[in-house]
């Protein structure tokens, strides 16, 4: 295991899932691989947490789910961002940017 791999920052997994799915519908493993790839393996996704989060977001109405054929003709549960999910992503993104900027300002502050 690579030591650089860390768990996803507490509370950001939902936002990362929504963001990933805003590009295209994906199944669970696809989402995990995409998050790991795009974060250049900084984040390691725990499958239990991911699948649980997917079910929760589905319950909340931000995702829809359906079983589809994959490219290599296996059946997989695909998740699709709903209109409510897109809204939620926007609000979470702006919220995150505000916080990140604030943290960055604090860390960069001189003296």
């Amino acid at each position: 295991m690579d030591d650089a791999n860390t768990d996803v920052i507490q509370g950001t997994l939902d936002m990362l899932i929504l963001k990933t799915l805003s590009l295209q519908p994906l199944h669970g493993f696809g989402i995990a691989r995409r998050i790991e790839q795009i974060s250049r393996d900084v984040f390691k996704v725990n499958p239990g947490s991911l699948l649980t989060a997917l079910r929760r977001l589905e319950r909340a109405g931000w995702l829809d789910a359906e079983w589809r054929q994959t490219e290599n003709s296996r059946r997989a549960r695909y998740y699709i961002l709903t209109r409510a999910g897109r809204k939620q992503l926007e609000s979470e993104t702006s919220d995150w940017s505000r916080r990140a900027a604030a943290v960055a300002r604090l860390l960069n502050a001189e003296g």
Partner: protein
Amino acid sequence: MSLWRQLRHGLHVLLHPSAASQDVADEVRHYFTMAAAGHEANGLPPYAARRAARVATGNPTTVGEQVHSHRWEFWIETAIADARYAMRRLRAAPGFTLTTVLTLAIGIGATTAIFGAVYPILFEPLPYAEPRKIVMISDRTDGGDRMDVTFGTYTELLARSRSFSALAVIRAWQPALTRHATPERLRGQRVSASYFRTLGAAPFIGHDFDATADRPRGDNVTILSYGLWQQMFGGDRDILGHQITLEGDNYTVIGVMPATFDNVLAPTAQLWSLLQYDASLVSTGDSTRYNSREWGHHLTMVGRLRSTSGLAQATREVASIANSPVPEFARPDWASLSGGMIVHSLQQDVTSSARPALLAMLGAVLLLLLIACMNVTNLLLARATRRRGEVAMRAALGAARSRIIRQLLTESVLLSALGGALGLGIAATGVRVLVALSPPGLPRANAIRLDAPVFVFAVGVTTLIGLVVGLLPAIQITRAGLQSGLRRSTARTVGGPGATRGALVIAEVALALVLLVSGGLLLRSIGRLLATPPGFAPAGLLTMQVAASGHQYDSTAARYLFFSDALDAVRRVPGVSAAAFTSQLPLSGDRDGYGFRLESDARSEGTEGANAMRYAVIGDYAQTMGIRLRHGRLLGDHDIAGQPLALMVSESLARGYFPGTDAVGHRLQVGPDTAWGTIVGVVNDVQQASLAATDRNAIYVPVAQWVWTDATLSLVVRSRGDAAALLPAVKAAIWSVDKDQPIIRVATMDAMVAMSAAAQRFALRVFEVFGIVALALAAIGLYGVVSASVAERIREIGVRTALGASPADILRMIIRQGMTLTAAGIVIGVAGAIEATRAIASLLFDVSPLDAVSYATVIVVLACVAAIACWLPARRAAGSDPLIALRME
């Protein structure tokens, strides 16, 4: 919307559990396959790729469970699964399940039944509007006792007090209703017009009493109870405005009370009429009018407090009125209110007589419930010890401790739910039995039932018990079992659960002893009570009440003629050896107290003075009753009108007021404005109010020489054979004089004596049953503990036998162990009983709460039962083959 989605998805999962879990499992498997495929694509061989995927993603089953466990419906599924599992486990151990469920059912059933009886009487508010505002007001004697009020006092309070929004006075009334050939005696009340308003009730058809009719010679009107209206008038609404004949007078029916009206002051009252006393007699302050019914102590007063005033404030105001007489309400000596007045809440008043017995029963049943719970805890502990291996296995397979405890608790809650369901059945029967057994004077007995509060109580108790009895074994097993359980399923050492179980048995024995001692004390009390000489010979006595009602008996002479003719007719009945009339009958509830003055003692002038029971008698009363003459002569037929008043007094009165001298020949004045009488004889004391009563002053007067003849007298008949068999002939004899006179309250004197101990007997029955059940439960508990210990020590016993211990040695060793627990329980129990029996002291009669005989008997019985419970498993141990025991290794 999101909530709705949550609910919809959750319900979907619950309704299609296998499809839902398949869905999750498929997704997890797909994830895993994809991860493995990824590793394979990186060049790993399939076997290594799968291994890497498993390391990275974890156990697919665990992942699936993790996904499941985040959903709200998951805990329902777990609970159902736990309950199913528990059900299977219980079915696999039918003996254990049956014992536990039955024990709990008995405990819960008995508790629920007693609670059902006690709750409406002691805790439920009376069924009136703002019941806490209703109070009873009575005179206070100089001795501090309560006494009925006079109409004069009522009139004065009505005018002077400000604390009450309404006041009412009541007296009992037993009018004869003439409708058909045989007259019927009804039970009713004469009330002031404000009575129903004071209680906050009103007729549901017709109208309430009108105050203007509540005066002498006012309109004769009556209000019927719902029961009488249904039973005698078929629920006919047209009865309103019609007249019925009561005591020879016509009364107009003006209303009917609703079925829901509960007349707690006289629960059996069937109709009401107005008191119609003369208020003008009171406010004139004319002392020549004192000798009227307006100044007799025979009324019950109730009041409703204003919303702004409380009980304490009303008590203060009434006291200040009592202490400051005003000229316009001049009072006679006997109603001077010099002792003050007593104000009680109605609730307290109605229930105070039954309170000690009911609270004692509630205490007893809680002890029983506690014993039952301990027994079940004990059984669960024993079971838990046997299940250590299973629990350790589950823990090793990844079950969290909290999860195992939850599972075990589910089992105990399920047991108590089964017990509770069965217990409700027992309670339903129990409540009916309680009502059937209840003494006749029990207030609000008609309110006893199994209803919502009782049901809630039962469910609450059941759940609580399930959690409490299950928690201790669950904690113990998961603590001791998780590490060591797998190593050996039979423990080598006794300790842990063994010690806890021992402690529980000690407690059970102690509690059973408390119950048994209480029952024993009550049993001895009843024995003493029934052994109390009543002062007369009850065997062979038939009694009944006879009234002279109707206008033909308005004069005292006509009444006397009727009674003396009736007595002559009764004496001629074959089989009657003696007969007499009396104004009050011992042990019947009659209570007719009079003040009296001694000629020789001038100090008694003007004080409330001495009191005695007054018996106005016709015929040979003392001879008929079997009351013995101590001195002088008996009253009899020779004491006729026109001669000076002859009196007979009781021994206690003679001793108390004429100490050291002969009472015969002394003169007494009984009641106000009567002639002085001369004592001609002294007879033995008679228990008038009850067998336990200590008030034994009595004065007997011949009706022939008394100022008036009471309208209702009790007939006593001594028979040569079976008293009850005489009844038809005696009734016929009375009706041969006047066929329109009702005869009521027929009873043999033996039955009256038995009834007078009814309250104690009621409590005794309950304690008897509870005591026996407690004894059985404690014995079962003891047997269980000793048996389990024998099973655990079987190897040790084998070794001892192999080393030369005889079966007798083994027997002694095992019994000693069980009896040590018993002895500890007895010691603690005796200490507890000494404390607890104080609570039932008021139910005891002539028996000390520390009665040595009761304690000794109970200890011996308990020890014997315990010895048997220990001996059974000990015999098994002594008879066991050492080789078999040792081979169990």
